[in-house]
Protein backbone atom coordinates (compact mmCIF):
# COMPACT_ATOMS: atom_id res chain seq x y z
CA UNK A 1 0.00 0.00 0.00
CA UNK A 2 1.52 3.35 -1.05
CA UNK A 3 0.29 6.69 0.19
CA UNK A 4 -0.07 9.26 -2.55
CA UNK A 5 -1.00 12.93 -2.48
CA UNK A 6 -2.25 13.84 -5.92
CA UNK A 7 -5.24 14.80 -8.06
CA UNK A 8 -8.35 12.77 -8.85
CA UNK A 9 -7.20 12.32 -12.44
CA UNK A 10 -3.91 10.86 -11.22
CA UNK A 11 -5.79 8.54 -8.85
CA UNK A 12 -7.75 7.33 -11.86
CA UNK A 13 -4.66 6.84 -14.03
CA UNK A 14 -2.86 4.99 -11.23
CA UNK A 15 -5.76 2.58 -10.83
CA UNK A 16 -5.77 1.90 -14.58
CA UNK A 17 -2.04 1.17 -14.38
CA UNK A 18 -2.34 -1.03 -11.30
CA UNK A 19 -5.25 -3.03 -12.69
CA UNK A 20 -3.16 -4.07 -15.69
CA UNK A 21 -5.08 -2.66 -18.61
CA UNK A 22 -3.99 -3.87 -22.07
CA UNK A 23 -5.37 -1.21 -24.36
CA UNK A 24 -6.24 2.48 -24.02
CA UNK A 25 -7.66 4.77 -26.70
CA UNK A 26 -8.68 8.34 -25.98
CA UNK A 27 -9.22 11.83 -27.33
CA UNK A 28 -8.34 14.77 -25.08
CA UNK A 29 -10.93 17.04 -23.49
CA UNK A 30 -10.79 19.33 -20.48
CA UNK A 31 -10.90 18.33 -17.58
CA UNK A 32 -10.10 14.70 -18.50
CA UNK A 33 -6.74 15.42 -20.18
CA UNK A 34 -4.37 14.60 -17.34
CA UNK A 35 -5.82 11.07 -17.01
CA UNK A 36 -4.73 10.14 -20.52
CA UNK A 37 -1.53 12.16 -20.35
CA UNK A 38 -0.51 10.21 -17.24
CA UNK A 39 -1.40 6.89 -18.82
CA UNK A 40 0.55 7.79 -21.99
CA UNK A 41 3.57 8.62 -19.83
CA UNK A 42 3.32 5.37 -17.77
CA UNK A 43 3.36 3.46 -21.04
CA UNK A 44 6.19 5.53 -22.51
CA UNK A 45 8.26 5.05 -19.33
CA UNK A 46 7.67 1.30 -19.43
CA UNK A 47 5.77 1.36 -16.10
CA UNK A 48 2.67 0.04 -17.79
CA UNK A 49 2.56 -2.69 -20.41
CA UNK A 50 -0.28 -1.52 -22.62
CA UNK A 51 -0.98 -0.17 -26.06
CA UNK A 52 -2.01 3.47 -26.26
CA UNK A 53 -3.89 4.71 -29.30
CA UNK A 54 -4.38 8.44 -29.87
CA UNK A 55 -7.48 8.64 -32.06
CA UNK A 56 -9.14 11.49 -33.91
CA UNK A 57 -12.37 11.60 -31.88
CA UNK A 58 -14.27 10.06 -28.98
CA UNK A 59 -16.50 8.19 -31.38
CA UNK A 60 -13.42 6.36 -32.65
CA UNK A 61 -11.91 6.04 -29.16
CA UNK A 62 -14.87 4.05 -27.88
CA UNK A 63 -15.18 2.10 -31.14
CA UNK A 64 -11.54 1.02 -30.94
CA UNK A 65 -11.78 0.20 -27.25
CA UNK A 66 -14.94 -1.83 -27.88
CA UNK A 67 -13.25 -3.85 -30.60
CA UNK A 68 -10.21 -4.48 -28.40
CA UNK A 69 -12.56 -5.62 -25.64
CA UNK A 70 -14.34 -7.96 -28.04
CA UNK A 71 -11.08 -9.77 -28.78
CA UNK A 72 -10.46 -10.23 -25.06
CA UNK A 73 -8.32 -7.28 -23.96
CA UNK A 74 -8.86 -5.35 -20.74
CA UNK A 75 -9.53 -1.82 -21.97
CA UNK A 76 -9.96 1.74 -20.78
CA UNK A 77 -10.96 5.12 -22.10
CA UNK A 78 -11.73 8.44 -20.47
CA UNK A 79 -13.73 11.46 -21.54
CA UNK A 80 -15.91 14.31 -20.39
CA UNK A 81 -18.92 16.39 -21.45
CA UNK A 82 -19.03 16.80 -25.26
CA UNK A 83 -16.78 13.79 -25.67
CA UNK A 84 -19.28 11.57 -23.83
CA UNK A 85 -22.11 12.98 -25.92
CA UNK A 86 -20.15 12.27 -29.09
CA UNK A 87 -19.77 8.64 -27.92
CA UNK A 88 -23.53 8.22 -27.55
CA UNK A 89 -24.00 5.82 -30.48
CA UNK A 90 -21.11 3.63 -29.36
CA UNK A 91 -22.26 3.63 -25.73
CA UNK A 92 -25.28 1.66 -26.90
CA UNK A 93 -23.08 -0.51 -29.12
CA UNK A 94 -20.75 -1.37 -26.22
CA UNK A 95 -23.56 -2.17 -23.79
CA UNK A 96 -25.54 -4.13 -26.38
CA UNK A 97 -22.34 -6.03 -27.18
CA UNK A 98 -21.97 -6.85 -23.46
CA UNK A 99 -18.39 -5.65 -23.38
CA UNK A 100 -16.67 -5.20 -19.97
CA UNK A 101 -15.28 -1.76 -20.83
CA UNK A 102 -14.38 0.68 -18.07
CA UNK A 103 -14.49 4.39 -18.81
CA UNK A 104 -13.87 7.41 -16.63
CA UNK A 105 -16.15 10.36 -17.27
CA UNK A 106 -15.01 13.59 -15.65
CA UNK A 107 -18.29 15.40 -15.23
CA UNK A 108 -18.58 18.72 -16.98
CA UNK A 109 -21.42 20.94 -18.23
CA UNK A 110 -22.47 20.64 -21.87
CA UNK A 111 -22.66 22.99 -24.84
CA UNK A 112 -24.27 25.32 -25.78
CA UNK A 113 -23.20 27.70 -24.42
CA UNK A 114 -19.76 26.42 -23.53
CA UNK A 115 -18.83 25.89 -19.93
CA UNK A 116 -15.80 24.05 -18.58
CA UNK A 117 -17.07 23.42 -15.06
CA UNK A 118 -18.90 20.63 -13.34
CA UNK A 119 -22.44 19.45 -13.53
CA UNK A 120 -23.89 16.02 -14.19
CA UNK A 121 -25.86 16.68 -17.38
CA UNK A 122 -23.30 14.76 -19.45
CA UNK A 123 -23.64 11.49 -17.55
CA UNK A 124 -27.32 11.83 -16.73
CA UNK A 125 -28.20 12.35 -20.39
CA UNK A 126 -26.56 8.96 -21.13
CA UNK A 127 -28.64 7.12 -18.51
CA UNK A 128 -30.51 4.88 -20.90
CA UNK A 129 -27.54 3.53 -22.83
CA UNK A 130 -27.25 0.32 -20.80
CA UNK A 131 -24.09 1.30 -18.92
CA UNK A 132 -23.56 0.93 -15.22
CA UNK A 133 -22.77 4.37 -13.82
CA UNK A 134 -20.86 4.90 -10.58
CA UNK A 135 -20.26 8.30 -8.99
CA UNK A 136 -17.12 8.80 -6.88
CA UNK A 137 -16.61 11.79 -4.62
CA UNK A 138 -12.99 11.61 -3.47
CA UNK A 139 -9.65 10.60 -4.96
CA UNK A 140 -9.58 7.45 -2.82
CA UNK A 141 -13.03 6.54 -4.04
CA UNK A 142 -11.96 7.11 -7.67
CA UNK A 143 -8.97 4.79 -7.27
CA UNK A 144 -11.05 2.10 -5.60
CA UNK A 145 -14.03 2.53 -7.95
CA UNK A 146 -11.93 1.97 -11.07
CA UNK A 147 -10.69 -1.36 -9.67
CA UNK A 148 -14.21 -2.24 -8.55
CA UNK A 149 -15.54 -1.27 -11.99
CA UNK A 150 -13.39 -3.90 -13.73
CA UNK A 151 -14.46 -6.53 -11.24
CA UNK A 152 -18.12 -5.78 -11.80
CA UNK A 153 -17.90 -5.23 -15.57
CA UNK A 154 -16.15 -8.55 -16.06
CA UNK A 155 -18.60 -10.44 -13.87
CA UNK A 156 -21.81 -9.07 -15.37
CA UNK A 157 -20.42 -8.33 -18.86
CA UNK A 158 -21.76 -4.79 -18.87
CA UNK A 159 -19.59 -1.67 -19.36
CA UNK A 160 -19.06 0.62 -16.38
CA UNK A 161 -18.66 4.38 -16.32
CA UNK A 162 -16.87 5.86 -13.31
CA UNK A 163 -17.96 9.48 -12.90
CA UNK A 164 -16.33 12.18 -10.81
CA UNK A 165 -16.68 15.94 -10.70
CA UNK A 166 -14.58 18.02 -13.10
CA UNK A 167 -11.99 20.26 -11.42
CA UNK A 168 -13.55 19.97 -7.94
CA UNK A 169 -12.35 16.37 -7.73
CA UNK A 170 -10.38 15.77 -10.95
CA UNK A 171 -7.93 18.58 -10.19
CA UNK A 172 -7.94 18.66 -6.38
CA UNK A 173 -5.06 16.95 -4.63
CA UNK A 174 -6.05 14.71 -1.73
CA UNK A 175 -4.23 11.89 0.04
CA UNK A 176 -5.16 8.38 -1.09
CA UNK A 177 -3.74 4.89 -0.89
CA UNK A 178 -3.01 2.55 -3.75
CA UNK A 179 -3.02 -1.25 -3.58
CA UNK A 180 -0.24 -3.73 -4.34
CA UNK A 181 -0.68 -5.44 -7.66
CA UNK A 182 -0.74 -8.94 -6.10
CA UNK A 183 -3.61 -7.87 -3.86
CA UNK A 184 -5.42 -6.47 -6.86
CA UNK A 185 -4.89 -9.81 -8.66
CA UNK A 186 -6.47 -11.55 -5.68
CA UNK A 187 -9.54 -9.35 -6.04
CA UNK A 188 -9.50 -9.11 -9.81
CA UNK A 189 -8.03 -12.13 -11.57
CA UNK A 190 -6.73 -11.94 -15.14
CA UNK A 191 -9.50 -11.32 -17.62
CA UNK A 192 -11.11 -14.50 -18.83
CA UNK A 193 -14.19 -13.54 -20.85
CA UNK A 194 -16.87 -16.17 -21.55
CA UNK A 195 -16.57 -15.39 -25.25
CA UNK A 196 -14.16 -13.52 -27.45
CA UNK A 197 -13.86 -12.71 -31.12
CA UNK A 198 -11.37 -15.31 -32.25
CA UNK A 199 -11.34 -17.85 -35.07
CA UNK A 200 -11.11 -20.58 -32.42
CA UNK A 201 -14.41 -19.53 -30.85
CA UNK A 202 -16.37 -19.02 -34.03
CA UNK A 203 -19.29 -16.63 -34.39
CA UNK A 204 -19.57 -12.95 -35.21
CA UNK A 205 -19.66 -9.87 -33.04
CA UNK A 206 -22.98 -8.21 -33.77
CA UNK A 207 -25.51 -9.31 -36.34
CA UNK A 208 -28.77 -8.32 -37.99
CA UNK A 209 -31.64 -9.84 -36.03
CA UNK A 210 -35.39 -10.26 -36.47
CA UNK A 211 -37.51 -9.15 -33.50
CA UNK A 212 -37.77 -12.60 -31.97
CA UNK A 213 -33.97 -12.70 -31.66
CA UNK A 214 -33.60 -9.01 -30.85
CA UNK A 215 -36.03 -8.88 -27.93
CA UNK A 216 -34.27 -11.41 -25.65
CA UNK A 217 -31.02 -9.42 -25.96
CA UNK A 218 -32.71 -6.24 -24.78
CA UNK A 219 -34.45 -7.93 -21.85
CA UNK A 220 -31.28 -9.76 -20.84
CA UNK A 221 -29.43 -6.43 -20.63
CA UNK A 222 -32.09 -4.75 -18.52
CA UNK A 223 -32.40 -7.76 -16.19
CA UNK A 224 -28.65 -8.10 -15.80
CA UNK A 225 -28.09 -4.40 -15.16
CA UNK A 226 -30.78 -4.53 -12.47
CA UNK A 227 -28.92 -7.36 -10.75
CA UNK A 228 -25.62 -5.50 -11.08
CA UNK A 229 -26.48 -3.24 -8.13
CA UNK A 230 -26.14 -6.15 -5.72
CA UNK A 231 -23.00 -7.34 -7.47
CA UNK A 232 -21.45 -3.91 -6.93
CA UNK A 233 -22.27 -4.01 -3.21
CA UNK A 234 -21.03 -7.58 -2.81
CA UNK A 235 -17.76 -6.73 -4.61
CA UNK A 236 -17.38 -3.55 -2.53
CA UNK A 237 -17.61 -5.69 0.63
CA UNK A 238 -15.03 -8.10 -0.75
CA UNK A 239 -12.78 -5.14 -1.51
CA UNK A 240 -13.31 -3.83 2.00
CA UNK A 241 -12.18 -7.14 3.48
CA UNK A 242 -9.02 -6.87 1.42
CA UNK A 243 -8.23 -3.20 2.01
CA UNK A 244 -10.33 -1.97 4.92
CA UNK A 245 -11.67 0.73 2.60
CA UNK A 246 -15.42 1.33 2.39
CA UNK A 247 -17.20 4.18 0.61
CA UNK A 248 -20.75 2.89 0.97
CA UNK A 249 -22.96 0.43 -0.87
CA UNK A 250 -25.67 1.81 -3.11
CA UNK A 251 -25.50 4.93 -0.96
CA UNK A 252 -23.16 6.50 1.52
CA UNK A 253 -25.23 7.61 4.47
CA UNK A 254 -24.17 10.30 6.91
CA UNK A 255 -25.68 10.63 10.42
CA UNK A 256 -28.85 8.65 9.61
CA UNK A 257 -29.64 8.01 13.32
CA UNK A 258 -33.13 9.27 14.06
CA UNK A 259 -33.16 11.40 10.95
CA UNK A 260 -36.32 12.92 9.53
CA UNK A 261 -34.83 14.85 6.58
CA UNK A 262 -32.60 13.00 4.10
CA UNK A 263 -30.47 15.26 1.90
CA UNK A 264 -30.02 13.24 -1.28
CA UNK A 265 -27.32 14.03 -3.87
CA UNK A 266 -24.38 12.56 -5.77
CA UNK A 267 -20.82 13.56 -6.63
CA UNK A 268 -18.72 15.93 -4.56
CA UNK A 269 -21.88 17.75 -3.46
CA UNK A 270 -22.61 14.67 -1.37
CA UNK A 271 -19.42 15.25 0.64
CA UNK A 272 -20.15 18.95 1.14
CA UNK A 273 -23.58 17.82 2.28
CA UNK A 274 -21.97 16.21 5.34
CA UNK A 275 -20.97 19.69 6.55
CA UNK A 276 -24.47 20.92 5.76
CA UNK A 277 -25.91 18.04 7.81
CA UNK A 278 -23.67 18.94 10.77
CA UNK A 279 -24.84 22.56 10.58
CA UNK A 280 -28.50 21.51 10.44
CA UNK A 281 -28.03 19.13 13.36
CA UNK A 282 -26.52 22.03 15.33
CA UNK A 283 -29.72 23.93 14.55
CA UNK A 284 -31.70 21.05 16.06
CA UNK A 285 -32.88 19.60 12.76
CA UNK A 286 -32.76 15.81 12.38
CA UNK A 287 -30.97 15.79 9.02
CA UNK A 288 -28.96 13.05 7.34
CA UNK A 289 -26.83 12.87 4.20
CA UNK A 290 -27.56 10.36 1.48
CA UNK A 291 -25.00 10.23 -1.29
CA UNK A 292 -25.85 8.07 -4.28
CA UNK A 293 -22.91 5.97 -5.51
CA UNK A 294 -24.73 3.90 -8.15
CA UNK A 295 -26.71 6.10 -10.50
CA UNK A 296 -27.39 3.29 -12.93
CA UNK A 297 -28.94 0.85 -12.06
CA UNK A 298 -30.81 3.24 -9.79
CA UNK A 299 -31.33 1.46 -6.43
CA UNK A 300 -35.12 1.79 -6.29
CA UNK A 301 -35.86 -0.90 -3.72
CA UNK A 302 -32.91 0.03 -1.52
CA UNK A 303 -34.04 3.66 -1.41
CA UNK A 304 -37.57 2.64 -0.47
CA UNK A 305 -36.23 0.31 2.24
CA UNK A 306 -33.84 2.88 3.66
CA UNK A 307 -36.26 5.71 4.39
CA UNK A 308 -38.23 5.48 7.66
CA UNK A 309 -41.96 6.20 7.85
CA UNK A 310 -42.66 9.91 7.52
CA UNK A 311 -39.20 10.67 6.17
CA UNK A 312 -38.70 13.72 4.01
CA UNK A 313 -36.38 13.23 1.06
CA UNK A 314 -34.79 16.48 -0.12
CA UNK A 315 -33.25 15.87 -3.53
CA UNK A 316 -30.34 18.00 -4.78
CA UNK A 317 -29.77 17.46 -8.50
CA UNK A 318 -26.74 18.76 -10.38
CA UNK A 319 -28.63 18.32 -13.65
CA UNK A 320 -31.93 19.26 -15.22
CA UNK A 321 -34.80 17.28 -16.58
CA UNK A 322 -36.00 20.06 -18.84
CA UNK A 323 -39.48 21.26 -18.06
CA UNK A 324 -39.66 19.33 -14.82
CA UNK A 325 -39.31 20.63 -11.27
CA UNK A 326 -35.88 19.17 -10.60
CA UNK A 327 -33.51 16.69 -12.14
CA UNK A 328 -33.03 13.02 -12.79
CA UNK A 329 -32.55 12.01 -9.14
CA UNK A 330 -35.84 13.61 -8.18
CA UNK A 331 -37.70 11.78 -10.93
CA UNK A 332 -36.05 8.46 -10.14
CA UNK A 333 -36.63 8.84 -6.41
CA UNK A 334 -40.30 9.70 -6.91
CA UNK A 335 -40.77 6.69 -9.15
CA UNK A 336 -39.00 4.47 -6.65
CA UNK A 337 -41.12 5.69 -3.72
CA UNK A 338 -44.47 5.89 -5.46
CA UNK A 339 -45.73 2.65 -3.97
CA UNK A 340 -44.97 3.64 -0.38
CA UNK A 341 -48.27 4.54 1.18
CA UNK A 342 -47.02 6.39 4.26
CA UNK A 343 -46.59 10.08 4.91
CA UNK A 344 -43.23 10.17 3.15
CA UNK A 345 -42.51 13.36 1.20
CA UNK A 346 -40.16 13.91 -1.74
CA UNK A 347 -39.12 17.34 -2.95
CA UNK A 348 -36.19 18.51 -5.00
CA UNK A 349 -34.29 21.24 -6.81
CA UNK A 350 -31.59 21.51 -9.46
CA UNK A 351 -28.56 23.55 -8.56
CA UNK A 352 -24.80 23.78 -9.01
CA UNK A 353 -25.09 23.80 -12.80
CA UNK A 354 -22.03 24.85 -14.81
CA UNK A 355 -19.82 24.70 -11.74
CA UNK A 356 -21.97 27.10 -9.66
CA UNK A 357 -20.34 27.03 -6.25
CA UNK A 358 -22.15 25.00 -3.60
CA UNK A 359 -20.69 25.67 -0.17
CA UNK A 360 -22.42 24.04 2.80
CA UNK A 361 -24.08 27.37 3.66
CA UNK A 362 -25.93 27.33 0.32
CA UNK A 363 -26.93 23.69 0.79
CA UNK A 364 -28.26 24.49 4.27
CA UNK A 365 -30.26 27.43 2.94
CA UNK A 366 -31.73 25.35 0.10
CA UNK A 367 -32.51 22.50 2.49
CA UNK A 368 -34.35 24.89 4.80
CA UNK A 369 -36.36 26.29 1.90
CA UNK A 370 -37.42 22.78 0.98
CA UNK A 371 -38.26 21.98 4.61
CA UNK A 372 -40.64 24.95 4.62
CA UNK A 373 -42.47 23.47 1.64
CA UNK A 374 -42.62 20.06 3.35
CA UNK A 375 -44.38 21.39 6.42
Amino acid at each position, binding site marked *: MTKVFDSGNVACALAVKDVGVDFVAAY*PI*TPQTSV*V*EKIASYIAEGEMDAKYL*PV*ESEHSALSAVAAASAVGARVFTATSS*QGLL*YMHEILHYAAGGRLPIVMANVNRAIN*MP*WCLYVDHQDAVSQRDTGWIQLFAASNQEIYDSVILAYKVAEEVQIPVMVNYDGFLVSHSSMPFETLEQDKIREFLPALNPPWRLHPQWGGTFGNVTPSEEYVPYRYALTEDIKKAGDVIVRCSKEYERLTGRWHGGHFETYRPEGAEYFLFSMGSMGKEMEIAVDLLREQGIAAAGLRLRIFSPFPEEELAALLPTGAKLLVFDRNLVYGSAGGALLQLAKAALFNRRDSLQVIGISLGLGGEDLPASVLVAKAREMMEVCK
Partner: protein
Amino acid sequence: MQIVFEKPKALSDTPTHYCPGCTHGIIHRLVAEVLDELDITGETIGIAPVGCAVIHFNYFECDVAQAAHGRAPAVATGLKRVNPDNIVFSYQGDGDLAAIGTNETIHAAARGENITVIFVNNAIYGMTGGQMAPTTLPGQITQTSPYGRDTKTAGFPLRMCELLATLDGTAYAERVAVDSVKNVLKAKKAIKKAFQYQIDGKGFSIVEILSSCPTNWGLEPVKALEWLRQNMIPYYPLGVFKDKEVSR
Protein backbone atom coordinates in the same frame (compact mmCIF):
# COMPACT_ATOMS: atom_id res chain seq x y z
CA MET B 1 -1.50 65.07 -38.22
CA GLN B 2 -1.69 62.11 -40.53
CA ILE B 3 -2.61 58.58 -39.46
CA VAL B 4 0.00 56.22 -40.89
CA PHE B 5 -0.96 52.95 -39.19
CA GLU B 6 -4.31 51.67 -38.03
CA LYS B 7 -5.87 48.62 -36.53
CA PRO B 8 -8.18 46.96 -39.07
CA LYS B 9 -11.80 47.99 -38.57
CA ALA B 10 -12.87 44.36 -38.66
CA LEU B 11 -10.96 43.76 -35.41
CA SER B 12 -12.60 44.82 -32.15
CA ASP B 13 -10.82 46.73 -29.37
CA THR B 14 -10.85 43.68 -27.10
CA PRO B 15 -7.41 42.51 -25.96
CA THR B 16 -7.04 38.87 -27.02
CA HIS B 17 -6.65 35.97 -24.60
CA TYR B 18 -3.94 34.30 -26.69
CA CYS B 19 -0.61 33.48 -25.06
CA PRO B 20 2.25 35.93 -25.62
CA GLY B 21 3.89 35.24 -28.98
CA CYS B 22 1.07 33.05 -30.24
CA THR B 23 0.53 33.55 -33.97
CA HIS B 24 -3.27 33.23 -33.72
CA GLY B 25 -3.11 37.01 -33.18
CA ILE B 26 -1.25 37.64 -36.44
CA ILE B 27 -3.70 35.45 -38.35
CA HIS B 28 -6.67 37.29 -36.84
CA ARG B 29 -5.18 40.52 -38.02
CA LEU B 30 -4.62 39.22 -41.55
CA VAL B 31 -8.20 38.00 -41.83
CA ALA B 32 -9.45 41.35 -40.50
CA GLU B 33 -7.33 43.32 -42.98
CA VAL B 34 -8.77 41.25 -45.82
CA LEU B 35 -12.33 41.80 -44.58
CA ASP B 36 -11.60 45.56 -44.57
CA GLU B 37 -9.95 45.59 -47.98
CA LEU B 38 -12.74 43.62 -49.63
CA ASP B 39 -15.25 45.67 -47.63
CA ILE B 40 -17.26 42.59 -46.65
CA THR B 41 -17.33 42.68 -42.83
CA GLY B 42 -21.01 43.63 -42.83
CA GLU B 43 -22.06 40.58 -44.81
CA THR B 44 -19.59 38.12 -43.35
CA ILE B 45 -20.36 35.32 -40.91
CA GLY B 46 -17.41 33.59 -39.27
CA ILE B 47 -17.47 30.19 -37.63
CA ALA B 48 -15.64 29.90 -34.31
CA PRO B 49 -14.07 26.49 -33.78
CA VAL B 50 -13.43 24.50 -30.64
CA GLY B 51 -9.83 25.26 -29.82
CA CYS B 52 -7.93 28.32 -28.66
CA ALA B 53 -9.92 30.45 -31.12
CA VAL B 54 -13.23 29.40 -29.54
CA ILE B 55 -14.06 32.98 -28.52
CA HIS B 56 -12.89 34.71 -31.71
CA PHE B 57 -16.33 36.33 -31.84
CA ASN B 58 -14.91 38.72 -29.25
CA TYR B 59 -12.28 39.87 -31.74
CA PHE B 60 -13.91 39.96 -35.18
CA GLU B 61 -16.49 42.63 -35.89
CA CYS B 62 -18.52 40.33 -38.14
CA ASP B 63 -21.28 37.94 -37.04
CA VAL B 64 -20.01 34.64 -35.67
CA ALA B 65 -21.58 31.23 -35.17
CA GLN B 66 -19.97 28.82 -32.76
CA ALA B 67 -19.73 25.20 -33.88
CA ALA B 68 -19.29 21.92 -32.00
CA HIS B 69 -15.78 20.46 -32.20
CA GLY B 70 -14.95 19.82 -35.86
CA ARG B 71 -18.37 20.73 -37.23
CA ALA B 72 -17.43 24.15 -38.65
CA PRO B 73 -17.55 23.22 -42.37
CA ALA B 74 -21.02 21.70 -41.89
CA VAL B 75 -22.19 24.81 -40.04
CA ALA B 76 -20.65 26.98 -42.76
CA THR B 77 -22.49 24.94 -45.37
CA GLY B 78 -25.85 25.48 -43.68
CA LEU B 79 -25.28 29.22 -43.40
CA LYS B 80 -24.07 29.61 -46.96
CA ARG B 81 -26.69 27.44 -48.65
CA VAL B 82 -29.55 29.36 -47.07
CA ASN B 83 -27.95 32.77 -47.42
CA PRO B 84 -25.67 32.59 -50.45
CA ASP B 85 -25.15 36.37 -50.33
CA ASN B 86 -23.26 36.12 -47.06
CA ILE B 87 -19.53 35.55 -47.03
CA VAL B 88 -18.91 32.58 -44.78
CA PHE B 89 -15.58 31.54 -43.38
CA SER B 90 -14.54 28.99 -40.80
CA TYR B 91 -11.45 29.50 -38.66
CA GLN B 92 -10.20 26.17 -37.35
CA GLY B 93 -7.22 24.60 -35.62
CA ASP B 94 -5.67 21.33 -36.69
CA GLY B 95 -7.42 19.37 -33.94
CA ASP B 96 -10.73 20.82 -35.03
CA LEU B 97 -10.16 20.45 -38.77
CA ALA B 98 -7.75 17.55 -39.18
CA ALA B 99 -8.80 15.29 -36.29
CA ILE B 100 -12.41 15.26 -35.17
CA GLY B 101 -13.55 17.32 -38.17
CA THR B 102 -11.64 15.69 -41.04
CA ASN B 103 -14.84 14.17 -42.32
CA GLU B 104 -16.75 17.44 -42.56
CA THR B 105 -13.80 19.17 -44.18
CA ILE B 106 -13.41 16.57 -46.90
CA HIS B 107 -17.12 16.42 -47.65
CA ALA B 108 -17.57 20.19 -47.73
CA ALA B 109 -14.68 20.34 -50.21
CA ALA B 110 -16.00 17.40 -52.22
CA ARG B 111 -19.38 19.13 -52.53
CA GLY B 112 -17.56 22.25 -53.69
CA GLU B 113 -19.22 24.36 -50.98
CA ASN B 114 -18.60 28.01 -51.75
CA ILE B 115 -16.98 28.77 -48.39
CA THR B 116 -13.55 29.82 -47.15
CA VAL B 117 -11.63 27.83 -44.58
CA ILE B 118 -8.82 29.39 -42.56
CA PHE B 119 -6.90 26.42 -41.19
CA VAL B 120 -4.44 27.21 -38.39
CA ASN B 121 -2.02 24.30 -38.13
CA ASN B 122 0.20 24.39 -35.04
CA ALA B 123 0.83 20.63 -34.95
CA ILE B 124 -0.74 20.21 -31.50
CA TYR B 125 -3.99 20.46 -29.53
CA GLY B 126 -3.33 23.87 -28.03
CA MET B 127 -6.39 24.54 -25.95
CA THR B 128 -6.46 21.23 -24.10
CA GLY B 129 -2.84 21.62 -23.06
CA GLY B 130 -0.63 20.19 -25.80
CA GLN B 131 -1.51 16.60 -26.65
CA MET B 132 -0.51 14.85 -29.87
CA ALA B 133 -2.67 15.74 -32.88
CA PRO B 134 -2.84 13.97 -36.25
CA THR B 135 -0.69 16.86 -37.51
CA THR B 136 2.03 16.42 -34.85
CA LEU B 137 5.40 15.82 -36.54
CA PRO B 138 7.20 12.48 -36.31
CA GLY B 139 9.37 12.61 -33.20
CA GLN B 140 7.62 15.71 -31.82
CA ILE B 141 7.27 15.72 -28.03
CA THR B 142 3.79 16.37 -26.66
CA GLN B 143 1.89 15.58 -23.46
CA THR B 144 0.78 12.23 -24.89
CA SER B 145 4.05 11.47 -26.72
CA PRO B 146 6.71 12.22 -24.06
CA TYR B 147 9.41 10.56 -26.17
CA GLY B 148 8.17 12.00 -29.43
CA ARG B 149 5.53 10.85 -31.90
CA ASP B 150 6.29 7.27 -32.81
CA THR B 151 5.03 6.67 -36.34
CA LYS B 152 4.91 2.92 -35.72
CA THR B 153 2.01 3.37 -33.30
CA ALA B 154 0.72 6.88 -34.00
CA GLY B 155 1.08 6.92 -37.78
CA PHE B 156 1.99 9.91 -39.89
CA PRO B 157 0.83 13.52 -40.00
CA LEU B 158 -1.98 14.50 -42.34
CA ARG B 159 -1.16 16.94 -45.13
CA MET B 160 -4.60 18.46 -45.56
CA CYS B 161 -3.92 20.76 -48.52
CA GLU B 162 -2.42 17.95 -50.57
CA LEU B 163 -5.33 15.71 -49.65
CA LEU B 164 -8.00 18.30 -50.46
CA ALA B 165 -6.26 19.22 -53.73
CA THR B 166 -7.24 15.81 -55.10
CA LEU B 167 -10.95 16.69 -54.85
CA ASP B 168 -12.73 18.21 -57.82
CA GLY B 169 -14.81 20.45 -55.55
CA THR B 170 -11.75 22.24 -54.14
CA ALA B 171 -11.23 25.51 -55.98
CA TYR B 172 -8.19 26.74 -54.12
CA ALA B 173 -5.81 25.23 -51.56
CA GLU B 174 -2.64 26.95 -50.47
CA ARG B 175 -0.29 26.46 -47.53
CA VAL B 176 1.45 29.47 -46.03
CA ALA B 177 3.32 30.25 -42.80
CA VAL B 178 3.50 33.22 -40.45
CA ASP B 179 7.10 32.74 -39.31
CA SER B 180 8.60 35.79 -41.10
CA VAL B 181 7.52 39.16 -42.47
CA LYS B 182 7.82 37.86 -46.01
CA ASN B 183 5.69 34.84 -45.26
CA VAL B 184 3.13 36.91 -43.35
CA LEU B 185 2.66 39.06 -46.46
CA LYS B 186 2.26 35.94 -48.59
CA ALA B 187 -0.24 34.56 -46.10
CA LYS B 188 -2.32 37.69 -46.42
CA LYS B 189 -2.35 37.42 -50.20
CA ALA B 190 -3.53 33.85 -49.96
CA ILE B 191 -6.29 34.71 -47.48
CA LYS B 192 -7.47 37.52 -49.72
CA LYS B 193 -7.52 35.24 -52.73
CA ALA B 194 -9.50 32.62 -50.81
CA PHE B 195 -12.18 35.19 -49.91
CA GLN B 196 -12.16 36.58 -53.45
CA TYR B 197 -12.80 33.08 -54.82
CA GLN B 198 -15.84 32.82 -52.60
CA ILE B 199 -17.07 36.24 -53.71
CA ASP B 200 -16.66 35.08 -57.32
CA GLY B 201 -18.57 31.86 -56.56
CA LYS B 202 -15.70 29.55 -57.46
CA GLY B 203 -16.19 26.97 -54.70
CA PHE B 204 -14.32 25.62 -51.72
CA SER B 205 -11.19 27.54 -50.75
CA ILE B 206 -8.78 26.73 -47.94
CA VAL B 207 -5.65 28.46 -46.66
CA GLU B 208 -3.58 26.33 -44.31
CA ILE B 209 -1.43 28.55 -42.12
CA LEU B 210 1.53 27.03 -40.27
CA SER B 211 1.31 28.65 -36.87
CA SER B 212 3.18 28.46 -33.58
CA CYS B 213 2.13 27.36 -30.10
CA PRO B 214 5.01 28.60 -27.92
CA THR B 215 3.20 27.54 -24.73
CA ASN B 216 2.69 23.89 -25.58
CA TRP B 217 5.84 23.53 -27.65
CA GLY B 218 7.71 24.78 -24.57
CA LEU B 219 9.63 27.39 -26.59
CA GLU B 220 10.01 31.14 -26.41
CA PRO B 221 8.08 32.91 -29.18
CA VAL B 222 11.11 33.61 -31.41
CA LYS B 223 12.49 30.09 -30.92
CA ALA B 224 9.04 28.75 -31.72
CA LEU B 225 9.09 30.50 -35.08
CA GLU B 226 12.54 29.05 -35.76
CA TRP B 227 11.22 25.60 -34.85
CA LEU B 228 8.30 26.10 -37.21
CA ARG B 229 10.70 27.08 -40.01
CA GLN B 230 13.13 24.23 -39.40
CA ASN B 231 10.67 21.43 -38.68
CA MET B 232 7.19 22.20 -39.95
CA ILE B 233 7.95 23.72 -43.34
CA PRO B 234 10.07 20.76 -44.52
CA TYR B 235 7.21 18.39 -43.64
CA TYR B 236 4.44 20.73 -44.75
CA PRO B 237 5.83 22.41 -47.87
CA LEU B 238 4.48 25.88 -48.60
CA GLY B 239 2.76 26.61 -51.88
CA VAL B 240 -0.38 26.38 -53.96
CA PHE B 241 -1.72 22.83 -54.22
CA LYS B 242 -4.86 23.59 -56.17
CA ASP B 243 -5.99 26.61 -58.10
CA LYS B 244 -8.99 26.05 -60.31
CA GLU B 245 -8.18 29.11 -62.39
CA VAL B 246 -4.60 28.09 -63.12
CA SER B 247 -5.25 24.43 -63.83
CA ARG B 248 -7.90 25.33 -66.37
